[in-house]
């Protein structure tokens, strides 16, 4: 438990913040030497809530292709021309 010293006690001077057992804190506070420190942060391990982050858009670079070649890959594919033959001719 974190305590704040109010009276000089041993090596402690008023204002010192000390980590002691709760039994020691109770004994010292009973005699007016200390009070329970309002900030017990060291003992509080509840993780602070963080805002959820949206997934970021990631651009993957293809380091093996030149930019022009990348554009070619990303371009819409041309429609295949159907070769007309005896077997697929329009009726």
């Amino acid at each position, binding site marked *: *438990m974190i305590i704040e010293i109010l009276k000089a006690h041993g090596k*402690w001077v008023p204002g010192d913040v000390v*980590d*002691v*057992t709760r039994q020691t804190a109770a004994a010292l506070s009973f005699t007016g030497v200390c009070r329970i420190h309002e900030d017990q942060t060291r003992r509080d391990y509840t993780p602070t809530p963080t805002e959820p982050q949206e997934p970021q858009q990631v651009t993957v670079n293809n380091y093996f292709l030149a930019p022009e070649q990348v554009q070619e890959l990303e371009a819409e594919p041309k429609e295949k021309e159907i070769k007309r033959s005896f077997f697929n001719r329009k009726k």
Partner: protein
Amino acid sequence: MANIVNGTDLRFYKAGTAIGEATSCQISFTMETRSALTKDNVGGFTRVEAGQRSATGSFQGLMAYDTTNESVSDLFTSYTNGEKFILRFTDDTNGHPYWEGTAMITQIDFEAGVEANAGYSGTFTFDGAVTLGTES
């Protein structure tokens, strides 16, 4: 799922005050055994009975002369005086276990490397039994 204890919570409290700027601590329990092998229980394996128990504690930390907790000066003074004190290993949380006994400092080391944090380490040796209790 069980709640795994965060090691940061567990500290040594020497006479009620935490060891200052500690970075780790350890408590060890050992027990010697008595051979109980006789001609009546020979089975190819050793037979033992409980013997003498002992406990030690080790601690490490960063050196800070102005810590309000137990400083290296306080630890050294206790070592020099051969002082025995109540040593508790606990996270000081209601309902949680603690291990407590009378101990003294039997080893203390200071280390100081160039451009590195000065540190200290040491060993507690318990005098007598270490008891398990529950924080309340």
